[in-house]
């Protein structure tokens, strides 16, 4: 079955990225489709929508969204994208996302592109849309069964989890080096903890950047992108399988904010243009301060971000801010707090604006172990996020949980 992803876009052809979007969709077994509308439909749709943009391509986007909302055009998912830095389009893009969510059950993802967009950058998002549509039953799975392993090959760390009968019986992580060697190392450690051997495993699930390589290497039953896998792992770990929640994963290379309903994701945003908003920036901060990354959180908890100015979008300029603040004699505690606040603020400004936050907020991933960052996110959102136990293992737990669905 080919998944049909309706494209509502402005500027893709003129930015030379339309072909890349179509290529990404094709590579995950989907195809981009374009809801048919007549010229007469456009004015009516704009009037009904209530936002009358000056640009005609945006009017066409509104008409196409209305066609989907009215069920006149059949699609499985929606991809809304416009040019990066276009204010008019940004307003329309976000309101159309809400309109689609209010009027359809279609999963939707938004994106703002530059002319440098290439298909691989879109792959995870497209794959997640396809997974949400085509693996609904698998994603609804709430309990792990049998003896399974999950491997999460992330940009910064590689994690392994062994699960048996809905319990974690082994876990290990290491910094990512060679994809297979890192995975072998953590899998061996986790299996040793669990007291099992590789031949005992009934299924393996892989996720993260190295998922395809690991999937092939271990003959995994599940090879799936990290957006859906992580969200399943997060709700399982937080015991929030029912109702609504927002999963926030500030990663080493990119950040994910995912809204879920009954454990199944329905909207997500994934950013990664500026490293100033990533876990990598906190690693750089810790290194420059000559403290272990594990100590950065407790340091930040003792400091006050208001005493040190750090709010650069760019990690390089961010480190310049850091050097300046330290040079001015600011305390390590205040500087650590300012670095955490800077990351949290940017995640809020750049990503959380693109989804409607649902409660509770579950913060996961390796950076959720940095207490100062969790505090900063809580201050900005007005609600302290839940950090479940083993929150850095979400991808591996999700992999073990979902792969048991193939037994």
């Amino acid at each position, binding site marked *: 079955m080919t998944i049909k992803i309706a494209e509502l876009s*402005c*500027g*893709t*052809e*003129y*930015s*030379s*990225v*339309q*072909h890349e979007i179509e290529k990404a969709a094709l590579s995950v077994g989907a195809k981009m489709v374009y809801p048919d509308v007549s*010229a007469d439909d*456009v004015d009516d749709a704009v009037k009904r929508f209530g936002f009358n*943009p*000056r*640009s*005609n*391509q945006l*009017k*066409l986007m509104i008409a196409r969204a209305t066609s989907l909302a009215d069920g006149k055009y059949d699609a499985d998912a929606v991809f809304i994208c*416009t*040019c*990066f*830095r*276009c204010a*008019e*389009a940004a307003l329309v893009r976000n309101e159309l996302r809400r309109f689609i969510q209010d009027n359809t059950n279609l999963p939707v993802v938004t994106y703002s*592109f*530059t*002319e*440098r967009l290439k298909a691989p950058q879109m792959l995870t998002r497209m794959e997640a849309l396809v997974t949400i549509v085509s693996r609904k039953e698998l994603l609804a799975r709430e309990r792990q069964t049998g003896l399974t392993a999950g491997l999460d090959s992330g940009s910064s760390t590689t994690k392994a989890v062994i699960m048996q009968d809905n319990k974690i019986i082994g876990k290990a992580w290491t910094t990512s080096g060679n994809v297979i060697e890192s995975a072998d190392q953590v899998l061996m450690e986790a299996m040793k903890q669990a007291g099992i051997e590789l031949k005992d495993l009934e299924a393996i699930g892989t996720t993260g950047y190295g998922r395809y390589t690991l999937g092939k290497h271990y003959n995994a039953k599940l090879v799936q992108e990290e957006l859906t896998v992580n969200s399943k792992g997060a709700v399982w770990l937080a015991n929030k399988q029912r109702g609504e929640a927002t999963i926030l994963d500030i990663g080493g290379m990119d950040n994910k904010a995912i809204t879920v309903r009954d454990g199944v994701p329905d909207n997500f945003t994934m950013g990664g243009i500026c490293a100033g908003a990533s876990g990598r920036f906190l690693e750089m901060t810790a290194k420059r301060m000559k403290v272990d990354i594990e100590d950065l959180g407790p340091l930040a908890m003792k400091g006050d971000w208001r005493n040190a100015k750090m709010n650069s979008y760019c990690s390089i300029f961010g480190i310049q801010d850091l050097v300046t603040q330290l040079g001015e004699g600011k305390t390590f505690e205040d500087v650590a707090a300012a670095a955490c606040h800077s990351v949290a603020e940017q995640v809020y400004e750049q990503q959380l604006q693109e989804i409607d936050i649902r409660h509770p907020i579950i913060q996961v991933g390796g950076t959720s172990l940095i207490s100062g960052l969790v505090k900063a996110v809580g201050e900005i959102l007005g609600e302290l996020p839940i950090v479940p136990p083993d929150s850095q293992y979400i991808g591996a737990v999700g992999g073990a949980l979902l792969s048991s669905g193939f037994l």
Partner: protein
Amino acid sequence: MKVFIDPPNSLVLFDIVERFGHEPLSAMAAIQEKIDNLEIDMPPMNMTLDDVVRGLKYAGVEVPSGIRGRLAMWGPMIEEADAAIIMDDAPYSFGCVGCERSNEMLKYLIKKRNIPILHVVYPSDEEDAKNFVISAKEFLEGLSK
């Protein structure tokens, strides 16, 4: 003479310019060139990254890529034009470039050329339509061929 038309994909304006013996500079010509010469068979607008980068001649990198791509397509035609006909307040069904900021920049680039320009407003009734054709005819006949 080479007459740039705005909206650049208006078939009506294209036809009028051609009927009165001039060469219309339009989106259709640019697209045709892309199909014929570059063997890109995905009309209408399969721009390349190089095209968008060429748009930096007209607008800085902080300007959205879709605008730079549009300017890269029509900017050179404006530079080449000896005259221009601009239709103001045209509905999208008459032809459009899709992006209002690009429209504004195109009009500005035309104005900066200091070439003969005919500004017409989209006709609201038959009488207006006749007047539009008459004024276009007079303008085009006044241009040396």
